[in-house]
């Protein structure tokens, strides 16, 4: 077991209860998909795991340590083992693709180097290899905002790869992309998952993608876990179960796509 979430609760300063008493385990090598409506707490949950958001209470056991209250060096060392991929890619648009990829290694580098813009040769080579893995080594010296959405997300994955992560958190990684690109991006994540054993925790919107890639599924609604199922059970998911996750208004799309609640 690589990750063990116990009674995680997050209440924002505004009083919004984003997560209520969420508990689940993640086994190493899983492709865990989190489903739920916008605002159901998926993003909050993912950001609590790498502590971009501080949980209000609860425990996050990663690698045998509770990191829910980790600070400073311990937090850095935890974060660098957890890669993250974002819906809006979150690249530094004006920096080169290579620089964006290199920034994935920052958790391992001496902070003082950042002042001089110095990057050891070996790290640059690693960055090129990461770009090769996602198939865009020729774009290394382009500005990040010159790339298409799909290419940008591949840079985002390459950046996460630079961390040599044990887990990759992917927050709706394909929500801004068209279906063909979505399969391509999730294909890279699946490859990492299968070939290198990287654990993936990914939030998704489209049911057919969930059914295609997930080895396990957790459904969130109003900050609570309302559904848990494995790969086989999600294929048999009934409309009733579906409505439990997505609310009464939710409908199954003909192609198996699930739209945002109407």
């Amino acid at each position: 077991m690589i990750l063990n979430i116990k009674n995680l609760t997050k209440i924002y300063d505004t009083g919004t209860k984003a997560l209520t008493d969420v508990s689940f385990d993640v086994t190493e090598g899983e492709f865990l998909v989190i489903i739920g409506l916008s605002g159901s707490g998926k993003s909050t949950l993912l950001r609590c795991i790498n502590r971009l958001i501080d949980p209000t209470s609860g425990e996050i056991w990663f690698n045998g340590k509770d990191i829910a209250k980790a600070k400073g060096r311990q937090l850095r060392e935890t974060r660098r083992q957890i890669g993250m991929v974002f819906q809006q890619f979150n690249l530094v648009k004006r920096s080169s693709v290579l620089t964006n990829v290199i920034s994935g290694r920052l958790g391992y580098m001496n902070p003082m180097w950042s002042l001089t813009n110095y990057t050891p040769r070996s790290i640059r080579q690693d960055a090129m290899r990461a770009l090769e893995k996602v198939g865009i080594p020729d774009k290394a010296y382009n500005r990040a905002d010159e790339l298409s959405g799909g290419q940008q997300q591949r840079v985002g994955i390459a950046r996460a790869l630079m961390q040599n992560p044990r887990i990759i958190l992917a927050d709706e990684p394909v929500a801004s992309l068209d279906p063909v690109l979505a399969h391509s991006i999730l294909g890279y994540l699946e490859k990492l998952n299968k070939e290198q054993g990287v654990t993936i925790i990914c939030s998704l919107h489209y049911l057919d993608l969930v059914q295609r890639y997930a080895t396990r599924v957790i459904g969130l609604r109003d900050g609570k876990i309302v559904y848990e199922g494995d790969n086989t059970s999600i294929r048999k998911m009934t409309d009733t179960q579906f409505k439990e996750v997505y609310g009464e208004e939710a409908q199954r799309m003909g192609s198996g796509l699930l739209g945002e609640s109407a």
Partner: protein
Amino acid sequence: MMEETAKSRFSVPRIPIVGGVLSIIPGLGQVYGGFIMRGVLLFLFIASLYALSLWRMDNAGIDISTYPSYNADDLNKKQEQAFIFATLAILLTTVGYVWNIYDGYVSAGGKPSPALVPGLFITIATLIIGAHITEIDIAKAVNEIGDVSPRLKQILWPWNPDDSAFTREVETFDGVAMWETPCDDTPVKQPTHTEGESYIEIDSVCGSISGLRKPDGSRDEGTTINIKGYDFRPGEEAELVLKPGSVPEFRVVVEGERVRVIPDENGEFELSFVMPNFTIPATATTSTPVEITVRQKQEVGSLKLSEDFWLSFEGIIETLFLALMATIAGLVLAVPVSFLAARNLMSTSRITIAAYYIIRVILNVVRSIEPIVWALIAIIWVGAGPFAGVLALTIHTIASLAKLYSEAIESIDPGPIEAIQATGADRLQTIMYAVVPQVIPPFVSFTIYRWDINVRMSTIIGAVGGGGIGLVLIQWIRLAKYDSVGIAVWMIAIVVTILDYASARIREQYV
């Protein structure tokens, strides 16, 4: 319109007549009716317009206790004007006041009347008072435009050959003779002259200067000397110059006019003058020789740029560098400050938020003090000169750039920051990798813009002693040397235009 959507604070209407009566004090009826803002504004406008009208008359020396009954003959022109302006304003305000009572009545009933027309009256009254306070006199501006046009012409085009932007070299043609006072046994030696060059002859070689007391008590009238000149340039003015002994040479002035002569067509002239008084050095034991020169001047050679031109040129270079140094010093100091003044970076803990507010307040205060005031402080601090100008502009630049920079930092995309943090980067790395690349374009843009502003400001700062072109500019303005003013104005205009264009181009590239 506001009136149509205005809502009373009270859901139940008040008694209209009470509102009308209360509005004898402007706005009170409206307040009673629940339209508090409306009431306060009405009171402020009406009360202050009456007060301002009375003040203008009082200021002009009219006894306002007897207003409006005056004998027109008792008022001088200034008072008459004040009376007319103030009375107009009072009449218009009174229209507003009467309306205010009606409005107090209907407001109390819950429906204030539209304020457009009375608002117009009050606005016109305000403009009338404003015109009187600022002494606006359009007739004067039109009538006296003739006075300004020759000067404006000089300022707009200071590049005519005989303007102060240019000089020529001057060649002199001298005829020299020697004379001495008092007479002694050895006559003073006359200079020789080269054939073909101008020369003069004098009818006496010695004598007395005027104004000395003679033994009998009377004043010496001074020797009259007749000069004949030959081989001068015909028709061109020559002037008389004396150089007694070791005393510096001077032009001879009689009754306020320089002694001048114009040679005839043969280049000859006759001139007589009385040897004027001058101080004979106390050490003189023998007679003092006096060099008598009749001098013609001719401008020769091509036009050259004058000293004033080069003073302007040096001034504008000083100004450019003054602005550059201030901008760079401001940039270097504003960058760290701006990070501390950026809300999104400083909202991590209470201490940082407190620091954010303190820095913001300091920046606002420093920025609200004009550079010219900082220049006066800097002059006390380090003395007049360009360094004072640099200091003054630097202080103001830090404050304004730090504010612009911090706003640029506040408006950056938070996504990359989140992504970089997620990799395990620390605070410094996050700033260097996620914040800096995003803020460089706006920083470059603001900095160049600021240099632009600093060049323009340093011309003003120079005028109070901060160095640069402003210093020479203000001196020429005071000396009424409008053609030289024109040179400086041209230099400033050219440099500002170039800088404007360049900064626009550079900013285009970076954004």
